């Protein structure tokens, strides 16, 4: 702190820093230490970034080198007044705890020119009254209901699905907003504020003041059409192209009970398929912070467990119809994954087409059901004369009777909740249901927010358990989700034409569910996941841990953009490998054979994917045995058709893009008053000028000064 104080006159402006370079004893080495003495870098922060769609830009923007303001901690209404009107040293960077991070406060700050940025300290548990920065009617313009299809149901006219949604994630802020977690860094910032920014006895605080600089300069602007056009111009005319945005995209995971030939695309004669779908992604206000517990993980863990449960029966007693498991990516952003799959089916680019679909069962948010009560939603427009749909519903209801669950239908006139199924309905009136834990509005009080995490789903462990013991500990949430998975598996089996006799042998394993919940919600780098994935992904799992010291880390479910170093998102990899291990068979192949099995008899890359899996690591060894798994599990692109068709203003398909940026940085330091800064600069310039004059003078009189002085000294002796 003393060092900070002694150097405070230098301020935080990099340009001003240049004027002070003469104090560096050694170029380079010395200066970096000066920088360290001035700034305290905040590393564990997550920014809010700019996203764009066909019509809008959302998120946050800072100036190129970052926005700087005097730090002020927001605790009461007076603090808000201080920032917005009475404080004497604007602009301010506001530090707030998560309770204040609500719409009314943020909109007040957004409207003020005295705010240079906001830092939000995230606590472990969310506000009791709930918090959702998402829309109250998610994906309302990309679902099935519109003026031409059930106009009375469009725009959440009947049911507001996410009543707590305040749409904060869809605002456009002109200042940067960062999040940081409660902990050491938050304490350092608070201490800096308490030490410097509070006046003695109610007087105005005196300089030097504690300031914060937040940098998150976004390249893209306005909308997707603009940024894609600029990408295009850059790639065609620029020598060093600087792209400004990328489409949100990743991969869907799909698998089928009986393998489908991947080399043949389009309609499959005589094939009738039951689709079991769910979503893989979530989001929050901040970039790449998306625990997605209830909104994604609960659903896809249920479907994975159901796929695993079906395996025991289908080998000996396969149902007459095929079942296609699909895990859609990017559904949060106007159904990227499902709209792409439907588009591919329509255009003969997928292994089956829409006519092959018998019916569809979607697992929505299911982890927060009360007393085993689940709800089956169906579409009131297309269901009027569908026998398949009523069969599906009666199947599910009768299956639930043997379990400790009850399944009911909500009021007839209620539309479907936001679901991938809506994208299928846009193309074809396919019979189907969406299984959820809510009758009307979501049970989820933290929809698409930071708090939709393990804790909210009650995935917690008795204290004192080691990570290995936690992995094996069966939580109550896992038990109830395993019940739901059993229900799903049995209903799917029955729906696909399986016989009732075998239903009782289909049971989801609570232990596997609890392991999945641990891996997907608490710690992805665990021994079980490591044993299921390929050695390359194990390396990624370990290196993906950003802050090893700060405890276990689950994967984040924000769909993001594909990068060269990270072509497929970690959750997608994990789901693919878990599914392959659950539904595949062990093949006695070496690692090289596993990579290229075409030449071997009885193996086919068209029917199956081959996965080289690390295998469990024996107690006193660092490397597993490794084995080859053969499973009909595949990845297909979840990249919105709008980008394929170059329709960047599309109203039918998702147009979401993420801006690029160069630097994300947050730091605090002490600033001097403007007067002192100017005085320092003035003195510096004056010294420079004086030294120039003196040097010139000395130089011109050099003969006189130096030679004569030597002579005079010598004569003096």
């Amino acid at each position, binding site marked *: 702190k003393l060092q900070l104080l002694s150097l405070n006159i230098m301020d935080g402006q990099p340009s001003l820093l240049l004027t002070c370079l003469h104090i560096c004893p050694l170029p380079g080495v010395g200066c970096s230490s000066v920088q360290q003495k001035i700034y305290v870098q905040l590393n564990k922060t997550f920014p809010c970034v700019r996203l764009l769609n066909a019509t809008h830009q959302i998120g946050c*923007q800072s100036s*190129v080198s970052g926005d700087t303001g005097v730090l002020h901690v927001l605790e009461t209404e007076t603090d808000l007044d201080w920032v917005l009107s009475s404080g004497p040293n604007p602009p301010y960077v506001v530090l707030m705890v998560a309770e204040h991070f609500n719409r009314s406060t943020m909109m007040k700050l957004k409207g003020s020119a005295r705010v240079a940025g906001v830092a939000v300290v995230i606590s472990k548990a969310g506000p009791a009254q709930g918090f959702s920065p998402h829309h109250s009617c998610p994906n309302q313009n990309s679902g099935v209901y519109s003026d031409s299809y059930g106009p009375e149901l469009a725009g959440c006219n009947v049911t507001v699905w996410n009543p707590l949604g305040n749409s904060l994630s869809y605002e456009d802020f002109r200042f940067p907003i960062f999040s940081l977690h409660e902990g050491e860094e938050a304490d350092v910032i608070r201490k800096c504020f308490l030490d410097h920014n509070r006046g003695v006895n109610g007087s105005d605080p005196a300089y030097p003041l504690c300031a914060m600089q937040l940098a998150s*300069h*976004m*390249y*893209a*602007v*306005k909308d997707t059409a*603009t940024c894609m*056009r*600029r990408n295009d*111009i*850059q790639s065609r*005319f620029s020598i060093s192209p*600087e792209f*400004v945005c990328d489409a949100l995209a990743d991969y869907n995971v799909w698998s089928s009970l009986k393998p489908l030939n991947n080399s043949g695309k389009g309609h499959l004669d005589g094939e009738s398929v039951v689709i079991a779908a769910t979503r893989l992604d979530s989001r929050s206000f901040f970039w790449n912070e998306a625990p997605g517990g209830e909104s994604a993980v609960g659903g896809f863990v249920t479907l994975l467990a159901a796929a695993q449960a079906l395996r025991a029966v289908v080998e000996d007693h396969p149902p007459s119809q095929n079942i296609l498991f699909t895990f859609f990516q990017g559904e949060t952003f106007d159904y990227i994954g499902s709209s792409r799959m439907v588009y591919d089916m329509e255009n003969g680019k997928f292994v089956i087409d829409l006519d092959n679909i018998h019916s569809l069962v979607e697992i929505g948010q299911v982890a927060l059901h009360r007393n085993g009560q689940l709800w089956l939603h169906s579409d009131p427009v297309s269901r009027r004369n569908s026998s398949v749909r009523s069969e599906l519903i009666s199947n599910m209801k009768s299956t639930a009777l043997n379990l400790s669950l009850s399944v009911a239908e909500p009021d007839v006139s209620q539309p479907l909740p936001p679901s991938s199924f809506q994208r299928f309905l846009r193309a074809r009136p396919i019979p189907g249901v969406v299984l959820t834990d809510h009758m009307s509005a979501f049970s989820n009080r933290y929809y698409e927010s930071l708090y939709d995490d393990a804790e909210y789903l009650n995935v917690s462990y008795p204290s004192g358990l080691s990570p290995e013991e936690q992995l094996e500990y069966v939580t109550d949430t896992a038990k109830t989700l395993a019940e739901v998975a059993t229900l799903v598996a049995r209903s799917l089996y029955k729906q696909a034409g399986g016989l009732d006799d075998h239903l009782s042998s289909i049971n989801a394993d609570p232990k596997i569910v609890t392991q999945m919940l641990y891996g997907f919600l608490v710690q992805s780098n665990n021994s079980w996941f490591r044993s299921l994935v390929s050695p390359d992904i194990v390396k990624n799992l370990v290196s993906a841990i950003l802050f090893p010291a700060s405890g276990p880390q689950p994967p984040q479910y924000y769909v993001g953009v594909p990068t060269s170093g990270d072509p497929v998102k970690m959750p997608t990899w994990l789901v693919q490998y878990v599914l392959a291990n659950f539904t595949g068979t062990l093949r006695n192949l070496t690692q090289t054979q596993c990579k290229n099995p075409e030449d071997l008899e009885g193996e086919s890359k068209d029917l199956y994917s081959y996965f080289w899996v690390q295998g469990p690591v024996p107690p006193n060894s660092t490397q597993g045995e490794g084995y080859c798994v053969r499973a009909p599990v595949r990845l297909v692109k979840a990249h919105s058709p709008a980008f394929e068709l170059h329709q960047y203003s599309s109203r039918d398909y998702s147009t979401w893009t993420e801006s690029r940026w160069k630097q994300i940085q947050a730091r605090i330091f002490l600033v001097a008053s403007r007067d002192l800064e100017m005085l320092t600069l003035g003195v510096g310039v004056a010294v420079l000028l004086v030294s120039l004059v003196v040097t010139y003078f000395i130089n011109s009189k050099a003969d006189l000064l130096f030679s004569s002085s030597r002579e005079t000294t010598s004569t003096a002796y």
Partner: protein
Amino acid sequence: MNLERVPNEEKLNLCRKYYLGGFAFLPFLWLVNVVWFFREAFVKPPYTEQQHIKTYVKRSALGLLLWVAALTTWITIFQHFRAQWGEVADYLSFTIPLGIP
């Protein structure tokens, strides 16, 4: 080249070349012409070729002024309306600014 050592015919020749070259959309040649031959045309004691040099320098200056006026007007208009023009302006731009419309 030092103009002092060049014969007067050579000066006139050079001045004319620069003057004519400026018409190939090269206003900088006119600028150079004006700066270089200003002394020759207006300060030096009269000589035979001076009359011609004077004309060329005057015309170069006029052309230069027109160019400056035209460019200033266009740049002002372009910078002011670039964001508004959207697509057209992007295609007219050599470097596209990052993060602003």
